[in-house]
């Protein structure tokens, strides 16, 4: 398929080779996993990189970014492998070797899919609820000066309250555990989005509103066609931060009477000291985050293409 190694491909190729060589040269300390696994990992990353690089991107800068990121990932894997499994510098049980984590992935893969669906359902419901409430409420608050001035200090006092202390109240008021979990995700995502919508609307250049008023638009059109697009850049910042907080709170939310979810998986593994599961879980969350953030970024790029 591919003929020669281009300029971009130099670093990833070098690091893949270094990775494989270092596995072959330095003897393994533990014996849980054979070298084959780790070499497979490096080759897998490299093949994936080549596919992404060849198929998806035509643009030079994209290829460069992909190469850079793959290089960083490879270096991290090499360091991790060397420090844990080869030189034995990090030997504590909190540092599993890459091979152990890989094995864990393989072992738990069916389970992880179940956890994934559970988490996605929870995230989607909590986050969407936050989006649906925070954006209109924030925009309405900003629109009425008096409400704006009141909501600003209130939100800045309420936002930093750790959602975790609200758990008992959620359990005692809401009808089900699922509702309580959703509430924790919701409340975490709500405030950043609310504040972003508030700031977005408050920061709109008055001339746009004035222009619209001279065109005689009704309130609904004003909202939909002028205020919303003008506030959208700020709202997207809030959406990103809200998403980050949702993920951060996932472990807490999934410890409310649940028995599934990637947060639950990680938390339970932490409690049980199974750190190859913990690391596998974190990497898995990282993968989910990558997908979610890519979707969010693409949506942003599309909706803000006029910028």
């Amino acid at each position, binding site marked *: 398929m591919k003929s020669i190694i281009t300029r971009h491909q130099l670093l990833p190729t070098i690091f893949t080779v270094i990775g494989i060589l270092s596995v072959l040269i330095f003897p393994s300390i533990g014996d849980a996993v054979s070298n084959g696994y780790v070499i497979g990992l490096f080759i897998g990353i490299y093949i994936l990189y080549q596919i992404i690089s060849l198929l998806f991107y035509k643009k030079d800068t994209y290829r460069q970014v992909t190469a850079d990121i793959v290089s960083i990932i490879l270096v991290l894997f090499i360091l991790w492998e060397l420090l844990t499994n080869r030189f034995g510098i990090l030997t504590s049980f909190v540092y599993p070797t890459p091979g152990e984590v890989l094995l864990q992935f393989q072992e738990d893969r069916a389970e992880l899919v179940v956890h994934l669906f559970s988490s996605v359902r929870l995230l989607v419901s909590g986050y969407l609820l936050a989006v649906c409430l925070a954006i209109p409420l924030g925009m309405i608050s900003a629109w009425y000066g008096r409400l704006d001035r009141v909501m600003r200090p209130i939100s800045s006092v309420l936002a930093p309250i750790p959602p975790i202390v609200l758990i008992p109240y959620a359990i005692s008021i809401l009808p089900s555990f699922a509702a309580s979990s959703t509430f924790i995700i919701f409340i975490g995502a709500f405030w950043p989005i609310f504040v972003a919508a508030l700031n977005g609307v408050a920061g709109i250049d*008055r*001339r*746009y509103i*004035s*222009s*619209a*008023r*001279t*065109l*005689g*638009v009704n309130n609904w*059109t004003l909202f939909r*066609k*002028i205020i919303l*697009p*003008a506030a*959208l850049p700020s709202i997207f910042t809030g959406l990103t931060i809200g998403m980050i907080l949702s993920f951060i709170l996932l472990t807490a939310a999934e410890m409310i009477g649940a028995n599934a979810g990637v947060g639950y998986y990680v938390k339970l593994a932490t409690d049980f000291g199974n750190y190859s599961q913990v690391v596998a879980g974190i990497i898995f969350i990282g993968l989910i985050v990558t997908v979610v953030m890519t979707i969010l970024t693409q949506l942003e790029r599309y909706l803000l293409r*006029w*910028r």
Partner: protein
Amino acid sequence: MLSTIQYDNVGVTYESNGQQAIKNFNLSIESGEIISFVGPSGCGKSTALNVAAGLIQPSVGAFKMDENIITSPGTDRGVVFQNYSLFPWMSNLENVRFALSQKSKKSNTELIKQSKKLLDKVGITGKSQYVYPTQISGGMQQRVAIARMFALDSPVFLMDEPFAAVDEITRKHLQNLLLDLWEKETSRKTIILVTHNIEEAIYLSDRVVVLYEGEIITTKPIPFKRPRDRQELENERDYLTIRKQLLQAIEGNA
């Protein structure tokens, strides 16, 4: 729908720096009149126009239309701002179509056709219609803003240096476009125009109002009959006198 406009002893002081931008501003404009505000840079022209647009509230006095005090923008006044103020998230075409759609119940294809025609008139043609405002030149943006105001077709036009960013030929073309529109209508539009081009003020206006340091120091009626012809106008006897008087007034000698 006739609209008499009245500045009733209006004064504006900007809060942020305490600058008194206009003061003792008294002016009555009859329906169908074309009025120009001229004066040195920073004398308060934009401020006075923004009061009419309902964008700035007078600190003292009141701005009235048909005896009603005006404090907010409205469909009765179409505005071209000094800085264009197109919606950056809509294509140029969409900017105009959006304005049209607020008044008209016509089908969308019809609206788009009409918008294109308006844009063609101001010389924004072809691909430039479909791109975003940030992707065209300054003068082109100003022309889109003019097309948008035309689309609105309100009884009062408020225009802040609408032809400042375009070349002489386009400028003349646009001036004629404006006059055509004004003259064709049975109930003529009331137009307030801010400009720093005295020939333009004379050519277009019924009266030229000269501002100096925030105050009206002269109001000069322009007696020439309409429709006017540029060439003829410049040969009129009074033309040079009026021009000179206005120039002097602008320098602060009323």
